[in-house]
């Protein structure tokens, strides 16, 4: 069953909320004395107008949202948000093409952080802030964000959540989903504030500190400077960002328990968190050794660079301190393997997620065991709990979709004349919401040279990857639209 009126009403409400976020940018632009008023005011007017219109059309007593409605609302609201979010770039004339403006916003909301802006330093600070704001909202999810701030959807929250969840759903922190969302939101905001303070103390200005903190926690990876993190030239800042990227890649429910409920033990007993740390350690050591042999760097520098790049890529943030495409090929290939793995479910990251990789590993091990013991009943265990066959098959379907999407991306990219390395890097990076790719596209703002159709395809890949395939691709299945 579809409830078109309810869908319209929710989208309308969400649009009005976006206007509030955009209003924050006006503050920044006034502070910096920028001539950006028309761009913001027109956009806000459009948002509020459309929002009110949709709420008016959708006004009725119906409060139920079906599961199908949930998927439509989530996919639609990510697209509509990006469309309206692109307006300030276009109206102000800093990004004169609609394609580029939409690309820029979608890259923001999906926390990919890829960019078509070649000279970032020339952009008004308030527009830079808007880019980072889109990431910060997209980090936990647009619907999630809304439910946490204003529990307006009533009974439909659950279905909306299901469509937007990152990774495998965990046990709720609180019986009510809106309270759970608020708690997770609190930890998200607190960590962002703490990081801002840390970065300020480490020598950044207030604006840079806040923007980088928002960018790190959402694992988006947009910087305020054209030179990125390297422009600050401070090992301390790099270490702070490493630490908070690691936290951004951790399940926020676990972080909540560890920090607010003082139960850090839960964090270190968690199988996924353990395998996440293990992955980070393994990749860092291997790449570190590789760097030490091939590059002429100090020991500390090698460790820091390796750790920074691995954490940045595995959490799908996409910050970089060096141009890793100039490393020995095997090293950046290893980094791309880290992109596949990803961090924890329930975080702000993209890609496979450690839990899925760990479960797939167990499934594979079990298949070997089964050859020797054909009659054995071998469960897939994560810690004490047993992964049901239903979840196992969902994970395998997910993996197939993920890898399939990357491969399709490679084909499409190569059709437009990219070489294999560029095509692979771009495809993987967009599906996993990392940002920078490989080869010629190894810096986040190199996307400006992409042909227009590829930019649209890139947007599609980012959205599909961010909403974990099923939510978006479901709308393309005939069974979804069947009446019965």
């Amino acid at each position, binding site marked *: 069953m579809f409830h078109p009126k309810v869908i319209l009403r929710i989208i309308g409400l969400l649009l009005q909320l976006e206007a509030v976020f955009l209003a924050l940018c006006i503050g920044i632009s006034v502070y910096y004395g920028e001539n950006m008023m028309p761009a913001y005011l027109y956009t806000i007017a459009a948002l509020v107008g459309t929002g009110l219109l949709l709420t008016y059309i959708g006004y009725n007593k119906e409060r139920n949202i079906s599961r199908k409605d949930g998927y439509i609302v989530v996919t639609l609201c990510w697209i509509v948000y990006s469309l309206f979010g692109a307006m300030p770039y276009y109206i102000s004339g800093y990004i004169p093409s609609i394609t580029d403006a939409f690309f820029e916003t979608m890259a923001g909301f999906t926390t990919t952080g890829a960019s078509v802006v070649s000279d970032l330093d020339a952009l008004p600070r308030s527009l830079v802030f808007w880019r980072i704001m889109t990431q910060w909202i997209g980090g936990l999810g647009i619907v999630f964000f809304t439910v946490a701030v204003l529990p307006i959807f009533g009974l439909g929250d659950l279905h909306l959540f299901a469509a937007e969840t990152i990774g495998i759903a965990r046990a709720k922190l609180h019986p009510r989903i809106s309270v759970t969302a608020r708690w997770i939101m609190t930890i998200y905001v607190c960590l962002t504030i703490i990081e801002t303070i840390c970065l300020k103390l480490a020598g950044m200005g207030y604006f840079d500190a806040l923007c980088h903190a928002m960018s790190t926690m959402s694992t988006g990876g947009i910087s305020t400077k054209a030179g990125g993190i390297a422009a600050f030239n401070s090992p301390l800042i790099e270490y702070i960002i490493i630490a908070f990227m690691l936290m951004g890649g951790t399940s926020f429910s676990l972080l909540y328990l560890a920090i607010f409920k003082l139960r850090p033990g839960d964090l270190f007993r968690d199988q996924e968190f353990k395998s996440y740390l293990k992955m980070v350690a393994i990749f860092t050591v291997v790449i570190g050794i590789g760097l030490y042999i091939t590059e002429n760097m100090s020991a500390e520098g090698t460790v820091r660079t390796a750790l920074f790049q691995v954490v940045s890529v595995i959490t799908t943030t996409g910050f970089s301190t060096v141009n890793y495409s100039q490393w020995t090929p095997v090293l950046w290939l290893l980094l791309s393997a880290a992109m596949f793995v990803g961090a924890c479910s329930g975080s702000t990251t993209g890609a496979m997620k450690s839990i899925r990789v760990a479960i797939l590993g167990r499934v594979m091990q079990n298949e070997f065991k089964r050859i020797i*013991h*054909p*009659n*054995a*009943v*071998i*469960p897939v*265990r994560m810690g004490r709990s*047993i992964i049901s066959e239903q979840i196992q098959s969902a994970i395998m379907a997910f993996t197939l979709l993920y890898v399939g999407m990357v491969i399709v991306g490679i084909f499409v990219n190569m059709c437009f004349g990219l070489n294999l390395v560029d095509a692979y890097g771009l495809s993987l990076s967009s599906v996993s919401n990392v940002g920078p790719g490989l080869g010629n596209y190894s810096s986040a703002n190199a996307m400006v040279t992409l042909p227009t159709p590829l930019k649209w395809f890139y947007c599609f890949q980012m959205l599909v990857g961010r909403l974990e395939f099923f939510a978006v691709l479901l709308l393309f299945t005939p069974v979804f639209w069947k009446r019965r």
Partner: protein
Amino acid sequence: MKIVIAGAGAVGTHLAKMLSEENENVVLMDEHEERLGKMESMFDLKAMVGLPTRISDLEAAGVDSADLFVAVTPDESSNITACILAHYLGAKKTIARIDNYEYLQPKNKAYFESLGVNSLIYPEQLAAEEIATGIKYSWMRQMLEFGDGALVMIGVKVRENSGILNIPFKELARDIPYHIVAIQRGDTTIIPRGNDVIEADDLVCFMTTKDQIPYIRSICGKEKYTEVQSIIMMGGGRIAVRTANLISKKVSVKIIESDMKRCRRLVELVDDSIMIINGDARDPELLASEGIHETDAFIALGDSSETNILACLSAKRAGVHRTVAEIENIDYISMAESMDIGSVINKKKLAASNIFQMMLKTDVSSVKCLTFIEAVVAEFPVREGAAITRKPVKDLGLPRGANIGGLVRNGEGLRVSGNTMIQADDHVIIFCLEHVLKKLEKYFN
């Protein structure tokens, strides 16, 4: 004494039968008429159909005047509820059978007491503990600990290579660090006296201190037995789960279960290291592919006693030298013994002996039953002025079929001779045939 037993399953019927033979007034109730079957016509007890959790049924069973209420249905929640209700209606003592290890923890005891549940029994746990100790010492049939481990009772089947065969007791019994409390030869139980001798294939019960266990092992000629490192279990019932979780840290365990649904449940219940195999444990090909020839012990815990016996026999033929069978049919136990099955586990006897001790009027720290002999070993704390402290042991005139195995004084295990005077605060460990236990009460009052 009036006893109401709720639940006519294996444990309930055995208990009812045993108690009615002891001339107690037994009421056996169960909600299913067919389970009560011919109990009433075969034994001197009252059988009634009723739900143990329904107050009117409990009243009809006469719970208000009962001295003991025993709830042994398969469902622990019903058992606990039934006990709470029985206590409320006026039963003096209540016992509930449970299936949850957490409930047994000492810190929860007071709470259950306050609910009106005086004690909890967990037959599967008792059986699992017994299997686990049996596996640890693969050369003996059974080991029981008394006085917090100060004294142990060991049952060993002696073979022809033993050094203590055919020596009359009056010669054997000089300066030995152990005491032989009983010998089981075929169907007869012998409480040894001066001229008796131990013969090959006898089952001998030794009472000794823990540090003498290696010595007992050497005189019985059991040195060649290797330690158990791998086990195959047949049947994934509750005993198997408890046992597997008790021993899985030291040995590798495989459980073979034929019901696929149960297999799926099992993987949630047991530790990670235990492998669950779906199949029929009587299938020699399956056993061979799971490495029965390299397995040290085979434990048959299936539903049917006959199958368990046969499975153990075939495991023996495949070269497993340590087998344990769960035999719920008490008549088969001596038969299983003559077929060299190895240890026998009987959940009913374990539960019954446990419940039995609660019926004694005197304090008794523990009553443990021997699976291979129709006998129990009881540990009695001695009170100030009890009859047993007045005369040396040889003049006490203990009933036939009872034998003092030893005593624990200040935490130290001591042997008892004819001239020993038992003192207050000692713990006396007495071996006795099952029906003699009640007669011992008077010595301790």
